[in-house]
C-alpha cells in the first residue's frame, strides 16, 4: 500500500514539475525593480503580461521565453525611450475592435527603442510604432490568423506618425496588411519577407522612405503606395500577387517616387499606376505577369527606362484617353523581348528605329473586370491577332530607343537534350530485342 502511495505521489510530482509554470514574481514587478538603463534577463519560461515599460531598460530572453498577455490590451506597452526587447515571444493580446484603441503585441511610443529576435502572434496588430523616432526592428516574426480573417485582425508592423525607423530582416505572414505606414517619413525598410496578407506594404501620406530588397509574395496586393512622394523602391521582389484586381505594386495619387531594379514575377498586374505623376520606373524586370504595367491615363509624366519585359500576356496597357508618358530617357528605352522585332544593324544594343507596342486588351480590361479571368486563356493570342488584322489595336507605347540584350543561356541545357536521347536509345533497344525474339 505504502509503495503504491509513494508511486502515485512520485508520478504526481513528476507531472506537476513538467507543467509550464508562471514566474513566481510577476514580470511587471521585475521590470519595476530593474534600474534605469539596467538589463533584465528572463528565463526560458512563460511570464504573465500585460506589462508597461516606463523607463529605459533592456529585457532579454532565452529560447522559450514568452510574455503572454491577458487578452485584454497591449501585451507590451512601451512609454519610454531607449528600451530593448530581445529574444522573446509575445502572444495573446486583445483582439477586441470595440475598444478605444486597436491593441497590439507591442506598442511603442518612445524613441531609440530596439526590437530584436521577437516572435509575435495571437494579437491584433503585431508591432505598433506610434509617434516616435529612430526605432530599430530586426528579425521580428509576426504571424496573423490567416487571410480568411482579414476584417478581425490588424497589421503585422504598423508605423503611424513616426520617422527615421529601420525595419529589417523580418517576416510577416497572414496579417491584414504586412507593413502599414501612415504619416511616417524617412524610414528604411529592408530585407523583409511579407506573404499572404491583403497588402504586403500599405503606404499612406508618407514621404521620403526607402524600401530595399524586400520580398512581397502571394499577397492580394504586393505594395500599395498612396498619397506619398519621394519613395525609393529598390531591388524588391513582387511575385505571385494574384487575385481579383491584384497587383505587384500600385502607385496611386503619388508623385516623384523611384521604382528601381525591382522584380515583378507572375502577378496579375506588375505595376498599376493611377492618378500619379512624375514617377520614375527604371531597370525593373517584368516577367510572366498577366499585365506588366497597367497605366491609367490619369497618370502622366512618368519615365520608363531600362525595364525588361518578358513573356507577359500584355507588357503594357494604357487605359483611357491619351496621356503623356516617356518611354525612354537619355537615349535608353526598354527591353521588349522577342515580342517586338527590333533591328540593330549597328550593334550598339539600341534599336535603329522606334517600336510601337500595340494591344487590343485595354478595351476589354476597361469595360469589365471579369476580363482579367481570360488573360491567361489560349484564346487571348487569337483575339489579339484578330484585332491586329482588323486594325482595332491601339498603340500602348512608343519607344524611340528600344534596347536589345542577348538572352542568357539556360542553367543546365544538357537535361532537355538528355531526355530525348534516352527515349531514342530506349526505343532502339526495344526494337532490337523484339527483332531478336522474332
Amino acid at each position, binding site marked *: 500500500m505504502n509503495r503504491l502511495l509513494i508511486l502515485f505521489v512520485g508520478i504526481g510530482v513528476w507531472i506537476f514539475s513538467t507543467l509550464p509554470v508562471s514566474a513566481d514574481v510577476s514580470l511587471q514587478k521585475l521590470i519595476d525593480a530593474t534600474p534605469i538603463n539596467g538589463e533584465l534577463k528572463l528565463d526560458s519560461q512563460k511570464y504573465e503580461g500585460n506589462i508597461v515599460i516606463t523607463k529605459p531598460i533592456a529585457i532579454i530572453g532565452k529560447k522559450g521565453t514568452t510574455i503572454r498577455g491577458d487578452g485584454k490590451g497591449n501585451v507590451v506597452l512601451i512609454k519610454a525611450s531607449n528600451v530593448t526587447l530581445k529574444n522573446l515571444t509575445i502572444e495573446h493580446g486583445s483582439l477586441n475592435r470595440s475598444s478605444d484603441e486597436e491593441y497590439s503585441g507591442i506598442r511603442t511610443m518612445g524613441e531609440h527603442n530596439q526590437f530584436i529576435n521577437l516572435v509575435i502572434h495571437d494579437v491584433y496588430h503585431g508591432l505598433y510604432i506610434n509617434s516616435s523616432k529612430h526605432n530599430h526592428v530586426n528579425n521580428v516574426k509576426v504571424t496573423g490568423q490567416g487571410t480568411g480573417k482579414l476584417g478581425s485582425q490588424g497589421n503585422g508592423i504598423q508605423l503611424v506618425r513616426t520617422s527615421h525607423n529601420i525595419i529589417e530582416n523580418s517576416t510577416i505572414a497572414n496579417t491584414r496588411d504586412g507593413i502599414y505606414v501612415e504619416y511616417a517619413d524617412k524610414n528604411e525598410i529592408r530585407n523583409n519577407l511579407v506573404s499572404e496578407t491583403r497588402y504586403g506594404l500599405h503606404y499612406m501620406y508618407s514621404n521620403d522612405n526607402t524600401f530595399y530588397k524586400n520580398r512581397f509574395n502571394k499577397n492580394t496586393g504586393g505594395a500599395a503606395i498612396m498619397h506619398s512622394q519621394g519613395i525609393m523602391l529598390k531591388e524588391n521582389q513582387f511575385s505571385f500577387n494574384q487575385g481579383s484586381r491584384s497587383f505587384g505594386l500600385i502607385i496611386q495619387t503619388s508623385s516623384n517616387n523611384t521604382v528601381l531594379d525591382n522584380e515583378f514575377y507572375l502577378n496579375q498586374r506588375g505595376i498599376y499606376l493611377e492618378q500619379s505623376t512624375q514617377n520614375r520606373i527604371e531597370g525593373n524586370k517584368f516577367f510572366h505577369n498577366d499585365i506588366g504595367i497597367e497605366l491609367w491615363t490619369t497618370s502622366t509624366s512618368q519615365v520608363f527606362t531600362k525595364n525588361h519585359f518578358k513573356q507577359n500576356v500584355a507588357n503594357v496597357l494604357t487605359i483611357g484617353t491619351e496621356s503623356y508618358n516617356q518611354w525612354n530617357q537619355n537615349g535608353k528605352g526598354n527591353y521588349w523581348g522577342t515580342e517586338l522585332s527590333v533591328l540593330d544593324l549597328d550593334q550598339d544594343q539600341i534599336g535603329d528605329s522606334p517600336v510601337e507596342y500595340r494591344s487590343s486588351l485595354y478595351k*476589354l480590361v476597361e469595360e469589365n473586370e471579369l476580363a482579367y479571368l481570360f488573360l491567361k486563356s489560349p484564346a487571348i493570342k487569337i483575339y489579339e491577332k484578330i484585332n491586329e488584322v482588323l486594325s482595332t489595336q491601339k498603340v500602348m507605347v512608343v519607344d524611340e530607343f528600344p534596347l536589345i540584350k542577348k538572352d542568357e543561356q539556360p542553367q543546365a541545357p544538357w537535361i532537355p537534350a538528355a531526355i530525348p536521347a534516352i527515349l531514342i536509345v530506349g526505343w532502339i533497344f526495344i526494337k532490337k530485342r523484339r527483332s531478336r525474339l522474332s
Partner: protein
Amino acid sequence: MNYIWKEWLEQSRGKGLWLGLAMVILSSMFLMMEARSYPDELGFDAFLLSLYDMNIYLVPIFALFISSFSIFQEKELKTSMILLTKKESNRSLMMKKSIAIQTVVIGAFVGWYFILALLMKWFLQFQLSSFLYFVATVVVLLLIFNQLGLFLGNITNTKMQLIGATIFTWFLFVFLIDLAFIQYVPSVSYQNVKLFSWLYFLDPLHTLRFYLETSLGLFSLNNMSRLMEKMIWMAPWKFLLIDLAFWMTLFFELSILFRSKGDKS
C-alpha cells in the same frame, strides 16, 4: 480487369500513347529548366502553373485521339460487334471500355508525373500537397476528355470524320469557347453575373485553372469586388466536381444514345 489488360496491351503496342507521353515529357523538361530561372521559393509553383498551361494544349488532344481511336478500332475490327452479340449490352460494353481507357491513359500520364516529381525534388522546392493538387487537375482533365473522345469515336463512321471531329472539338474547347466568352464579357453586369458564372465554370479548362490557383494559394479569394464575389459563389472544388459529374455523365449517355456501328461503306 480483362478489358483493362486488353486496353493496356493495345495502347502499349501502339504508338499513340507513347508519342503523346513523349511530347508531354519533353515539354515538361523544358518548362522545368525555365522554372529554375525563377527565385527558389517561386520556382515550384511557377513550374506547376506552366505545366498546367502546357497541359491545356496537349492533354485534351492526346486524350481525345487516344480514346476515340480506341473505341473506333473496336468498331472497325468488329470486336465490339462480337462482344455485343455475346453477353454485353451496349451500356455495359461502354462502361467497361471507359474504365479501361481511363485506367490506362490516366495511369500512364500520372505515372510520368510521379517520375517527374523525383526530378522536381531534385531541382525545385518540392511540395507534396501542391503536387497532388496538380495531379488532380491532370486526372480530371483526362477523365473528361477521354470520355469526350469515347463519345466522338462512338458517333463517327469514318476515320476522316473522327479526325475532323477530334480536331474541331479540341479547337472548340481550347480557343473558340473563350473567344465567345470574351465577346460576351462587356455585357456582364452584377444582375446577370450568376448566369455567366455557371457558363464560365462549366468549362472544365476554366474551373481546373481556378481550382489549381486557389489550391496553391496563388489566387486569393479575399478582398474581392461585389461582382467577383457573386461570380465565384461556390468553392472551386465544388465547381470542379460538378464539371466532372456533368461532362462524364453527359458524354457517356450521349455515346450510348448516338452509337454508330462503324463505316457503312
